[in-house]
């Protein structure tokens, strides 16, 4: 009987391949092939319009020992990630916790707070940021009115990267929306029990709220880390990597080498460094997740 049921469904189930066919093709041609090809390119001096030759580890050795820009790029990218990912998460969580209460108009408030996040890496907003943070821009005008000295947000190596980070952190909306939804899921009974036991507000936050939403923190952390390590638009439009390469992120270096100088082999090596860094950090976060991410129930598929 059971056997019969399986064979009965078999023909229909094979139709699944028709439905997933676009993705299989897309995966093979536009994801797996480019992924492997860039690894192969990275061992060659491949260049648009010229014949590629195998050069072994030359690209990598040049990158790590001969290119003084590279280590700076790596550092800048790390600093950018270290500022923006926690910055965004803390901001989003703080605002979400504050908004997570019974007040009228919460939907409207949430909508307005989300607006900055609509623009993502848009050029229009990058230009706006540039204009606002000019030496004689509106931010400095405000500082001067408060009798504070002018800050060279874009021209000083100490501030340029932070100014770009601020743009990213400003767009904390989608994490905030996820946190808000997660906070609603935390069972009230937990708080009630804790209150009876006399737990303080801070204790309730760190012992109940945070552990309950760790899966969302985890998800956001990984996705934003991947995005931050590839950042391009804001650095490219606002500061063009300057001053003195203080905002020259790896994404920009990749673009310059690959699409301005057409050193595709060399750029591929950079892209694999980016990939390795992302993979490494992802594995570290995954590895540590069993110590700090709590799943209420195991999802199965």
């Amino acid at each position, binding site marked *: 009987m059971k056997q019969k049921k399986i064979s009965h469904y078999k023909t*229909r189930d094979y139709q699944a391949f028709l439905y997933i066919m676009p993705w299989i093709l897309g995966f093979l041609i536009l994801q797996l092939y480019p992924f492997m090809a860039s690894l192969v390119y990275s061992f060659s001096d491949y260049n648009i319009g010229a014949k590629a030759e195998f050069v072994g580890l030359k690209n990598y050795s040049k990158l790590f020992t001969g290119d003084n820009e590279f280590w700076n790029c790596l550092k800048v990218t790390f600093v950018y990630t270290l500022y923006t990912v926690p910055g965004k998460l803390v901001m989003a969580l703080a605002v979400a916790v504050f908004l997570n209460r019974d007040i009228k108009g919460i939907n409207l*408030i949430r909508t307005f707070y989300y*607006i900055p996040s609509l623009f993502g890496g848009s050029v229009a907003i990058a230009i706006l940021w540039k204009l606002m943070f000019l030496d004689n821009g509106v931010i400095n005008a405000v500082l001067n009115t408060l009798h504070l000295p002018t800050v060279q947000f874009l021209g000083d190596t100490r501030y340029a990267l932070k100014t770009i980070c601020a743009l990213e952190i400003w767009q904390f909306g989608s994490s905030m929306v996820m946190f808000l939804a997660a906070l609603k899921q935390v069972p009230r009974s937990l708080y009630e029990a804790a209150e009876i036991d006399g737990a303080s507000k801070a204790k309730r936050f760190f012992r109940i709220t945070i552990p309950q939403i760790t899966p969302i923190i985890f998800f956001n952390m990984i996705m934003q880390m*991947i995005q931050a390590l590839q950042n391009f638009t804001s650095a490219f439009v606002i500061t063009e990597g300057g001053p003195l390469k203080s905002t020259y992120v790896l994404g920009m270096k990749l673009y310059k080498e690959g699409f301005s100088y057409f050193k595709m082999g060399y750029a591929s090596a950079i892209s694999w460094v980016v990939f390795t860094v992302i993979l490494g950090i992802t594995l570290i976060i995954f590895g540590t997740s069993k110590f700090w991410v709590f799943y209420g129930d195991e999802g199965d598929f």
Partner: protein
Amino acid sequence: MKTRNYKARMVRDYLIIFIIGALLLYPIIWMFFATFKDNREILGSIKLLPEHFRFDYYIQGWKGTGKVTYTHFFINTFLLVLPTTILTVVSSALVAYGFARFKFPGKKILFAILIATLMLPNAVIIIPRYTLYNKFNWINTYLPFYIPAVLACYPFFTYMLIQFLRGLPRELDESAYMDGCGTLRTFMQVLLPLMKPALFSAGLFQFLWTYNDYFNALIFINSVKKFPISLALRMSLDAESVVQWGKIMAMAFVAVVPVMLLFFAAQKYFVEGIATSGLKG
């Protein structure tokens, strides 16, 4: 006494909410008013409101660069974004259906691959993709945007729709099969109508991301005639030796208006899309 305390706290909360909100939105509001100001008013001044409301900068800015106007850039943008969005939604929905409703050999592995590609950085595939598209003569066309959409290369949406479909009861499919429907008809007539909110969310996000995307447009499009707005804005910033900021801000503002309109018209889908896809991740 207690109610007065409560009221005071309410007032305080709303005040904090309002101040944070005003700070967050100030750049956008400032941008709007900057479109009416000349450089003298924009630079070195903290005044928000312009001396007069004049629309010269919109008119001048709209003329664009060379012979290409913003009418053209807008048409380009929509020619790029709309098909990409629609194709993404269609292909992702089909693939999601395949994954969510059938048990087929190799499903576990294929699903694991799909999840893995969620984390595949664009940076690592962009160069071979470029050479591939170059070989096909697709550079400076919108095919580098359409084809990945046709081939469901946006795993985020596929995953989101799989999750949504898993929430719909399988009895629906079963009874459709009983009634003699094939799988395609079951999908089109039974499941698709129920998937509308999720499809809408996916479409909105894909629209937004493609509309805002600069990196791919920069790499794949190289003639001004085909420029979408993102590239046009960047070009107008570089074009002049003395930048007329009012003009630039006018066009930048025009560029963000469609996004804001769309958001306000469909904000429910935005918020639900984020909340559900993230929560189940």
